[in-house]
């Protein structure tokens, strides 16, 4: 028998009756849900905008022309041609050369921070590296054009070999921009390698270099690959450095001392110009944008999949 004097029915009603005591709570939850919905809406808007106008573009320009590996990109002046391969080549050019510099330096930094540095050194150097990510890219663009091309490359190699706009200057500063990303994510991956592995290797008489290169690096490989994919995605999406320093001339070339135009560089050019709405010139902006979006999206997704599979291995 329950406690004397309890009005059980009243109690039951009280236990259920909260909904109307705090109506404000529902409003708040609704507002919060709306905020989250905004993010979904943003993606929908991006996809709808990009692919919608791309569809219009392909009414005027054949899809085979766009993907023709032997065509040229000549928009905005006659004779028009819309083969995206030249812009993709420009992007590939700066990606390749920036990685040539960024990979050794970025991975070297990651190894040093993870395996060699004392915790005091790490505490000083790591934030300093993060500073590099905080520098606005237009500043790097300025450096590339004025100091690297003007003050170093042209005097060093001669003004005939080095055009004012060249891929190398852009690639160098892209490398500076992207090294902290590679270093930081790779270092995290290496730090997650179980200490037991290190101790076992040292216990067998391996030197620090051998432990770092033969044990830790392979063990952290998936995280390192993910960092590289993310870095490539960021370089592909970067606009200002290439628009200012690499040039506005589409060029099917991987030579670092050539003037090239990347996908992003072209998109900026259209944005600065007065291509009229509805013309293939204007719509080409979206076609190139879609290509860019698909590439960076694929790389980000791939990096994410690698990271989650890599987390499974250690849990």
């Amino acid at each position, binding site marked *: 028998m*329950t406690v004397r004097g309890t009005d059980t029915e009243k109690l039951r009603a009280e*236990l259920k*009756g909260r909904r109307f005591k705090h109506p404000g709570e529902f409003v708040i939850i609704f507002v919060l849900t709306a905020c989250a919905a905004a993010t979904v809406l943003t993606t929908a808007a991006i996809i709808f905008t990009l692919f919608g106008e791309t569809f219009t573009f392909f009414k005027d320009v054949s899809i085979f022309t766009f993907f023709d590996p032997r065509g040229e990109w000549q928009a905005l002046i006659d004779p028009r041609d819309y083969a995206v391969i030249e812009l993709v080549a420009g992007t590939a050019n700066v990606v390749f050369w920036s990685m040539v510099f960024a990979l050794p330096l970025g991975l070297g930094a990651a190894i040093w921070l993870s395996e060699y540095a004392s915790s005091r050194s790490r505490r000083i150097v790591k934030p300093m590296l993060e500073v590099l990510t905080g520098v606005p890219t237009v500043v790097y663009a300025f450096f590339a054009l004025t100091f690297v091309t003007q003050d170093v490359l042209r005097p060093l190699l001669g003004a005939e070999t080095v055009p004012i706009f060249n891929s190398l200057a852009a690639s160098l500063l892209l490398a500076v921009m992207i090294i902290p990303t590679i270093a930081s994510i790779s270092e995290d991956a290496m730090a997650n390698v179980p200490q037991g592995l290190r101790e076992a290797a040292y216990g067998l008489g391996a030197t620090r270099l051998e432990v770092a290169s033969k044990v830790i690096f392979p063990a952290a490989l998936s995280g390192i690959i993910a960092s590289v994919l993310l870095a490539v995605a960021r370089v592909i999406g970067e606009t200002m450095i290439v628009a200012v320093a690499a040039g506005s001339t589409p060029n099917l070339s991987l030579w670092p001392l050539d003037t090239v135009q990347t996908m992003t560089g072209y998109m900026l050019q259209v944005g600065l110009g007065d291509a009229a709405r509805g013309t293939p010139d204007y719509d080409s902006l979206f076609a190139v944008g879609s290509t860019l979006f698909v590439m960076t999206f694929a790389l980000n997704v791939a990096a994410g999949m690698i990271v989650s599979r890599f987390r499974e291995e250690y849990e």
Partner: protein
Amino acid sequence: MTQSAIESREEAALSSTAAMHAAGEGPSIGKPEEEICVSIDDISLWYGQKQALTHVSMEIAVNKVTALIGPSGCGKSTLLRCINRMNDLIPSARTEGAVHYRGANVYESGVDPVEVRRRIGMVFQKPNPFPKSIYDNVAFGAKVNGYKGNFDELVERSLKRAALWDEVKDDLNSSGLALSGGQQQRLCIARAVANNPDVILMDEPCSALDPIATLKIEDLMRELADEYTIIIVTHNMQQAARVSDYTAFMLTDEESSGKLIEYASTSLIFTQPREQRTEDYIRGRFG
């Protein structure tokens, strides 16, 4: 606790041995003679596919201290958290059965767990005062539940109930985190009491504390039973023997998880347990 107090309590328990009738699962699950405040009716719980509680039924007397004991992993904390629906916070937890608080089933559809927790408070194993002042800690529950009276009086009253007032009365604005472990736990008790609950659940409240702080809180439990119904989980058998009126022994073994093995008045369970497994546990043969 004076010796005579302990003795008189034991006497009272012994005299109610006849009062534990056979009920439910068989002679080992008793039913208190007093009025029943909380009735656990055939509760089973799963974490995903893994069962943690199996058909537990017991009735808890009003204004008494009831202890849940058993080896670790036996489900006693899980059962405690069923009473105030704290297991709702775990996404994979699924509960079947009912818990009747003063006749009303807290698992009935439409019941708001927030209302349940206003009436059934909880003190946790590791003291968890908010990173706020002592005053704000104690006043918080009352504040969000619409208390309209004088907060200063409420805070003083609650801290006195929790035997903490004298130690902190000059410094109510200092942070709750600056107190010692035992003081923090008493602050948490004051916080629970200020909310004016009916039942107070305590999940191993002393396991993170030193022996002196532990004794202070054990004394507190007995005093609080005058006004509230206290249900505690403890892994310390001596504590259960010192403090509680009724004790329930739970077990998880190969056959079933989270089963109630025996439930009787405390003195009976510790002197003449009916089940072999209860006796084995009490004699320290496992767990």
